[in-house]
């Protein structure tokens, strides 16, 4: 299994509270991603990173920000959590070689009350 961890694994927070999710990898992969998974929507890309301090938006980036100060860590921040951000969040990593596939972390279940 690829060395990807996410923390916390579960979190319950209140509306309006800032929340930061952490993704940590030990594979030294260049690309890192944050997805959210909701019933009926599959996985949707929030933000991704193609190197240290290089990030870009995905299809559902509103209300989220990211940072990557080290190769191994990719942080997802909800500046002011809303109930619509209740979801399961997955981090993924990949490299261009040899095969392009993405490897996923175990996920974080976030509930915003």
């Amino acid at each position: 299994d690829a060395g990807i961890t996410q923390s916390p694994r579960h979190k319950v927070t209140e509306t309006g509270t800032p929340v930061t999710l952490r993704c940590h990898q030990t594979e030294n992969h260049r690309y890192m991603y944050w997805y959210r998974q909701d019933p009926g929507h599959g996985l949707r890309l929030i933000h991704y990173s193609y190197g240290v301090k290089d990030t870009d938006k995905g299809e559902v980036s509103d209300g989220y920000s990211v940072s990557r100060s080290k190769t191994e860590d990719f942080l997802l921040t909800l500046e002011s959590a809303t109930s619509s951000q209740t979801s399961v969040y997955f981090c993924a990593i990949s490299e261009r070689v040899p095969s392009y596939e993405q490897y996923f972390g175990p996920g974080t279940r976030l509930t915003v009350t």
Partner: protein
Amino acid sequence: AQTVTQSQPEMSVQEAETVTLSCTYDTSESDYYLFWYKQPPSRQMILVIRQEAYKQQNATENRFSVNFQKAAKSFSLKISDSQLGDAAMYFCAYRSRQGGSEKLVFGKGMKLTVNP
């Protein structure tokens, strides 16, 4: 923009039988990758199989194989000798080979039930 469609939200199969999961995609690119991921109740996303568009030969991984029809933009997954452990959500995904974001586009998923 690329899109991936899994038209069947749920399927069921008897243990030891064969089942085929369908996936279609839309793209104007000629070179890309396609993937099937499995998500069991544990929630972990597991790569099942990968197909490179420039390869005509269909990918195979043990009991899992694909039927890749490039002209029809179809990428179905066949599971042979289904086992109880195959019960999961299955996601089809597309990845461009063009340089840049290396992003995956996912279908909405399909729930597979395996009956004993």
